[in-house]
């Protein structure tokens, strides 16, 4: 069986940044496996701008952001295979991939980096009642059809869900001459970035109806209308509030789900909250030598954070195959509580010379003027005041080395909100 030091599954922003970082950490035998026709992943269809403010201090479009990393991969001569799907990963890190040129090939990897990204929650999983006509698309599918294939998806549009892709598509379709009648959002707040609500909806006078959902899809062949209704606190439609909008298209932007079918095959333990692997601060999963980064780990709001996280995964995978991993088998677990839904990582490795650790987290509701508090037992390790925390934006918190140095192995630290 062929061997590689590091095999990276996925050539989107996470996989690319991980590959570059692993190479720069000295590993020369890195292989990227990408299922699509080109590197760059979903960024290829994200033609809008707003990427890279953190990473490059300038505002780039998706393809431009991807290109920065593709060039780094090309400059280093890191090999990659396109139109190649990974069919299996074993806990022993045997990777079975399939493509037209080579057929089905097994390779053994010193380390595997999972970077498969996420998928959109489809209509079926939302249980939207009504007919099943053409014209119901997830926002990302519509985005691909418009931006890559150049198709007009619809002329009169209703959007369910105010995730960022839905908001971006509201503007995109409006600019291409479609009428976007409204965006309905089940929750009492939007899951999208404030900037997108202003620049994609407000700019074009598109109403956002919070606490509303679709209760019926009309039209046997093609969507003819949708009925929306207000929902109560249990998110059940309130009878008598139904309004029907004629339209030919319904876009769904109702959440992203990390795509971890391969991770499960590798025996990786997943978090029930994130849908992604549970990892330690080196982004290593429950299976030794298998690392995860990007949207397969947890859904990010900004690609800049994906790149940063993936670079860490790349460096740590390099350390793992180089035998210089700092891991000493002593760990501290992190528990999210009091409004904090999760943290990534979920556990920390204790070392003699700890380095500062960045925790990423999301909250479950909109909170104003709270403190984010980290505790070990009753001891307060860190307290940060926050003016606002929203479910749509990923939070970040750094634990300084000095704080970590004082922790006992086997301890639990808790991250939560307090008044």
């Amino acid at each position: 069986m062929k061997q590689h030091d590091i095999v990276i599954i996925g050539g989107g922003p996470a996989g690319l940044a991980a590959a570059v970082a692993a190479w720069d950490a000295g590993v020369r035998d890195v292989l990227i496996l990408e299922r699509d026709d080109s590197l760059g992943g979903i960024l290829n269809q994200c033609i809008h701008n707003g990427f890279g403010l953190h990473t490059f201090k300038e505002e780039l479009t998706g393809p431009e952001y991807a290109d920065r990393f593709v060039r780094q991969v090309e400059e280093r001569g890191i090999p990659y295979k396109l139109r190649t799907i990974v069919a299996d990963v074993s806990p022993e890190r045997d990777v079975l991939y399939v493509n037209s040129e080579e057929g089905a090939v097994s390779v053994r990897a010193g380390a595997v980096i999972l970077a498969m990204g996420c998928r959109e929650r489809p209509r079926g999983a939302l249980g939207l009642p009504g007919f099943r006509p053409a014209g119901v698309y997830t926002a990302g599918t519509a985005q691909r059809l418009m931006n890559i294939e150049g198709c007009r998806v619809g002329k009169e549009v209703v959007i369910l869900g105010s995730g960022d892709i839905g908001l971006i598509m509201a503007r995109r379709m409006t600019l291409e001459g479609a009428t976007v009648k409204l965006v309905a959002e089940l929750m009492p707040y939007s899951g999208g970035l404030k900037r997108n609500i202003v620049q994609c909806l407000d700019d074009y006078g598109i109403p956002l109806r919070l606490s509303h959902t679709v209760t019926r899809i009309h039209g046997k062949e093609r969507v003819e209308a949708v009925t929306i209704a207000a929902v109560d606190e249990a998110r059940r439609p309130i009878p008598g509030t139904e309004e029907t909008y004629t339209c030919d298209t319904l876009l769904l932007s109702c959440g992203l789900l990390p795509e971890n079918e391969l991770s499960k095959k590798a025996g990786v333990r997943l978090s029930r909250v994130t849908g992604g692997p549970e990892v330690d601060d080196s982004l290593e999963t429950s299976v030794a030598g298998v690392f995860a980064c990007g949207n397969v780990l947890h859904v990010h709001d900004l690609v800049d954070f994906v790149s940063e996280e993936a670079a860490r995964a790349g460096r740590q995978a390099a350390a793992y195959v180089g035998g210089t991993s700092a891991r000493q088998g002593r760990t501290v677990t992190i528990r999210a509580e009091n409004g904090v839904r999760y943290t990534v990582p979920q556990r920390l490795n204790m070392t003699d010379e700890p380095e500062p650790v960045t925790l990423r987290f999301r909250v479950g509701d909109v909170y104003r003027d709270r403190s984010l508090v980290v505790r070990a037992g009753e001891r307060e390790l860190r307290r940060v005041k926050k003016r606002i925390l929203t479910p749509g934006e990923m939070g970040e918190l750094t634990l300084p080395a000095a704080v970590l140095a004082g922790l006992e192995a086997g301890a639990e630290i808790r991250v939560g909100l307090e008044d």
Partner: protein
Amino acid sequence: MEKYELTCIQCPIGCPLSVTVDGQTVAVTGNTCPRGAIYGEKEVTAPTRTVTSTVPVTGGVIARVSVKTASDVAKGKVLEVMRAIRCAVVTAPVYSGDVIVTDAAGTGVDVIATKTVLRRG
């Protein structure tokens, strides 16, 4: 005197801004930091946006190339710029940064490719 209600987008807080324009004087209230005041004034007096879209490519490895305005254009010009972009067709190869539409809709701003599309075959 005119009054505008905006949401600040400079950070996740999203302060609700009230902006009043009285002749040459612009007053912003509701902001909680100086960046909000600057944003509010600009949004009311000279708002600008970057426009992005795609243009068909003939003879390329893919069918369309993504494009953007090389810098922001006046918000009121966005739809005109879109019309200019819709008229454009290019032939491969196209390189990221190539000018696709010169001086789009009289804004003085070029529309440039944001992706490289090589020739097919």
